[in-house]
């Protein structure tokens, strides 16, 4: 039943100016999935649907073996959810919030909560309204982490945080990994974080999933080929190349399904391959989005 932490099948949702369609997603237990995509792509909507806060128009959603949104209460006992647009009660202290959550959840680990207070540099006596943005995010995360939930669903957990705070949070997320019964789904604009700790990467743009696969395999499919194109040579259109930018005699080809043969193909056409470089997730992100925009305009 719980080999798979999250499963979305054919999920769709229509809004007046935006629609999510054909969302197929799977997060096996013990894995970390990073969700990336431009603003308005549908990351938050997808997350809300899997939390049962929004009812999908079609498709099945199962989280920790529970159908959503019907069984959301059962599921939420084992989920720690933090979203970027979530706020704690201004007029109350962090300590009050901790007691409040503790009074609901059996699995609250008080010792771990105290440890997190120290690690995050937070004080329980402080009222939420007096606290900085970064501390507020950490406080909300603390409330989710201290329950040691089987699944963590985080919408933009490190957005707007200074490098130290980001590092503190990444550390806790990777510590969660030590237990192979626990899983994490997080969406982020911070491609560095996603690249570093995700096992699987899912790319969403304009309501559709563009890619969803093993991170290492994904990173391995992308390359930048720097080419020198002598006069009179035309670069062939090759499968696996999603874009070529040429400026005079120099060209940069971006491959999203790289095989060594591609370099050979270019060489045979008369071009010289200067270098073949790996791409960072950020570069892949931009290339992907630019490409899909071009496709729409064409």
């Amino acid at each position, binding site marked *: 039943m719980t080999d798979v932490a999250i499963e979305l099948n054919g999920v769709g949702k229509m809004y007046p100016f935006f629609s999510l369609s054909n969302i197929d997603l799977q997060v096996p237990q013990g*894995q970390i999935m990073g969700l990336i995509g431009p603003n308005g792509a549908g990351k938050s909507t997808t997350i809300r649907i899997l939390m049962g806060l929004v009812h999908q128009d079609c498709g099945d959603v199962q989280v920790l073996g529970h159908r959503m949104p019907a069984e959301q209460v059962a599921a939420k006992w084992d989920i720690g959810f933090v979203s970027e647009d979530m706020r704690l009660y201004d007029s109350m202290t962090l300590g009050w919030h901790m007691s409040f959550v503790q009074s609901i959840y059996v699995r609250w680990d008080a010792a771990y909560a105290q440890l997190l207070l120290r690690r995050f540099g937070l004080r329980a006596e402080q009222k939420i309204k007096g606290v900085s943005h970064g501390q507020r995010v950490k406080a909300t995360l603390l409330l989710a982490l201290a329950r040691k939930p089987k699944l963590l669903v985080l919408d933009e957990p490190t957005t707007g945080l200074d490098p130290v705070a980001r590092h503190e949070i990444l550390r806790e997320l990777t510590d969660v*990994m*030590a237990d*192979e019964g626990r899983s994490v789904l997080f969406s982020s604009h911070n491609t560095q974080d996603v690249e*570093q700790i995700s*096992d699987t990467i899912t790319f969403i743009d304009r309501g559709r999933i563009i890619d969803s696969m093993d991170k*290492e395999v994904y990173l391995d499919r992308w390359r930048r080929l720097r080419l020198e194109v002598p006069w009179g040579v035309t670069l062939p259109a090759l499968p696996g190349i999603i874009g070529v930018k040429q400026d005079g005699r120099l060209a940069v080809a971006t491959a999203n399904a790289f095989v060594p043969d591609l370099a050979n193909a270019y060489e045979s056409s008369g071009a010289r391959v200067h270098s073949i470089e*790996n791409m960072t997730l950020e570069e892949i992100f931009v290339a992907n989005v630019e490409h899909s925009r071009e496709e729409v305009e064409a």
Partner: protein
Amino acid sequence: MSGAFAISQSDKRPMYLQIMEQIKQRISVGDWTEGQSIPSIRQLAVDLQVSVITVKRAYLELEREGVIVTQQGKGSHVASTPGLGARLREQELKRHLEQASRIAALLGLRPTELEERLREAGDRISEKETI
């Protein structure tokens, strides 16, 4: 055990390659000896704050190269082949020498000139060590 590992994201090489290299380095300098048990995939992932899948890939490749061995349920350890450390050092030397040749070619040096530079480098190092 995995204290002095450093994975850098500004290093353009994939993370799993960096991990592989650093593990090989440990073995070649003798920090990790033949047959010694090493952190589990998950444990190293947590220590380095990288994804499990990255460490898994590194371990897989290392196993393919015969550098480590992973046993189901028992964790991983350095391969017990005698002379593994020496072999890895040998590989590293070969890599460095090839790199040196490549750069020498770009500088337009002849093989004898490269040999001369190598001898000079060797002298400099032994000087430093006697001081």
